[in-house]
């Protein structure tokens, strides 16, 4: 009998094999239900915690940015300088970092003031005594102090309020919030990766005997690896969807509470759409599932 040389018939991954590999993955998940549950719940909870932190960090950053955004320089021009208004406006507009200039409606303000303080009119102020006021919005808020100083030197300007003390503190706070959220998100991401890859490694450890047997009956490493990676991807995807559901439930509850109690809902929002959140979580879950399985399997395939 002539011995067939082995090298001549290396099987390639054919269409039939693809079907087989997927089948293997499906049976693997079905018959290892408890392990599947453990993996999926670990992935779901890790991603939910990570996602909750990122959403809150984004909200905090948006909130801080919105507060900073409200800051404007108020430039008061006394009534007697009415003729200079256009010149002053032009001069302010030329300053670098100025975004827009709006002249407040004096009559409206006066009306509002009278409404708030009904005692003003009888006190002998029948005419509107309010000065002209420009609200200057800045594109670069870090230059607030410099711009305010510049505006003060313009002829005809009486007073400039910049609130730069408060603004500087607010910006410092925003920076801190930003750094904390980046560092925290990175730390949580690393933690989630470790927890999830450990969970995957445990499920594989429980099946190391199975992997060993497959090697002994002539399965190539590729045929062992691919179904397990597919399982990892499915776990990652399902875990991500569960995490997304948890986050949607949590954030809609928070939105409901804050709207009723604090009326903060509009300002305190992450600004991310549910679909975007779902896609990011899904991508992350799938990537972690695939990579986690791939890296863990290598260890079990190598020890011969």
């Amino acid at each position: 009998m002539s011995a067939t040389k082995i090298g001549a018939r290396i099987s390639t991954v054919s269409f039939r094999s693809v079907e087989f590999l997927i089948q293997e993955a499906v049976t693997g998940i079905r018959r290892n239900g408890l392990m599947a549950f453990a993996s999926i719940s670990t992935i779901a909870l890790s991603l939910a915690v990570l996602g909750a932190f990122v959403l809150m960090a984004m909200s905090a950053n948006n909130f801080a940015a919105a507060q900073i955004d409200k800051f404007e320089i108020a430039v008061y021009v006394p009534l007697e300088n009415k003729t200079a208004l256009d010149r002053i406006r032009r001069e302010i507009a030329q300053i670098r970092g100025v975004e827009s200039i709006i002249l407040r409606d004096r009559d409206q303000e006066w009306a509002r003031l009278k409404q708030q303080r009904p005692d003003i009119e009888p006190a002998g102020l029948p005419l509107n005594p309010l000065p002209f006021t420009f609200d200057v919005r800045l594109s670069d808020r870090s230059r607030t102090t410099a711009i305010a100083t510049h505006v003060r030197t313009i002829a005809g300007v009486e007073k400039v309020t910049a609130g730069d003390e408060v603004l500087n503190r607010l910006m410092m706070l925003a920076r801190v919030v930003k750094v904390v959220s980046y560092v925290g998100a990175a730390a949580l991401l690393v933690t989630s990766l470790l927890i999830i890859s450990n969970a995957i490694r445990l499920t594989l450890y429980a099946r190391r005997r199975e992997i060993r047997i497959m090697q002994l009956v002539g399965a190539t490493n590729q045929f062992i690896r691919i179904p397990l990676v597919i399982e990892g991807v499915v776990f990652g995807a399902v875990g991500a969807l569960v995490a997304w559901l948890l986050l949607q439930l949590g954030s809609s509850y928070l939105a409901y509470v804050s709207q009723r109690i604090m009326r903060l809902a509009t300002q305190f929002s992450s600004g991310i759409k549910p679909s975007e959140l779902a896609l990011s979580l899904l991508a992350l879950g799938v990537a972690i599932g695939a990579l986690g399985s791939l890296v863990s399997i290598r260890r079990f395939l190598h020890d011969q």
Partner: protein
Amino acid sequence: MIQLHGVSVDYPNGVRALGDLTVTINKGEFAFVVGATGSGKSTLLKLLYREVLPTSGTVIVDGENVPALKSSLVPHLRRKLGIVFQDFKLLPQKNVWENLAFVLKVTGAKPREIRRRISEVLELVGLAHRCDSFPSQMSGGEQQRAAIARALINHPTVLVADEPTGNLDPDTSWEIVQLLEQINVRGTTTVVATHDSQIVDRMRKRVIQLEGGRLVRDEDRGAYQHCEL
């Protein structure tokens, strides 16, 4: 069919499992490898399916220089061999049919071919009625029959059995060994490691006896114990 020449195996912990072993087993032969625990029986068998690499010497199985084989080709060597273990090594999450199908599917066999070969080997080992059972639902003897069916499904040229009756009662052991002989009669070279003296004495086949990793006896139609007459 199987040629070992000057084979030594040292394990990393310094234990010498086999020392300068030279054995030839011809095509179609039935050979028992006997010896006490730790005599090197298992190591000898593991050399054949490249579970263990020799420290020195050559191992040739069915024309393949086993130690020189690229590791990516090891699965293909194993498909040419039928391997039977003491602990059966059936996939616990798969029923008998799926266990057998797995071995064929990894070779890319067609579904029709898979069905045909499975019913063929299940018939041979007398387990056709158990094809839906999971390993945990079967007796030791049935599991070993399933494992033998799996070993046969690729029409191996060599069948290697490492203590196939180690976990079975005497009657079942005898049935299993008879099954192995039946397979051998069909032309498959069969190597069985065992310390079951009853079986060896009843079968009167070639006996290769190891002691401390060395060949101490190689006798045709031998018994478990060598009797000086």
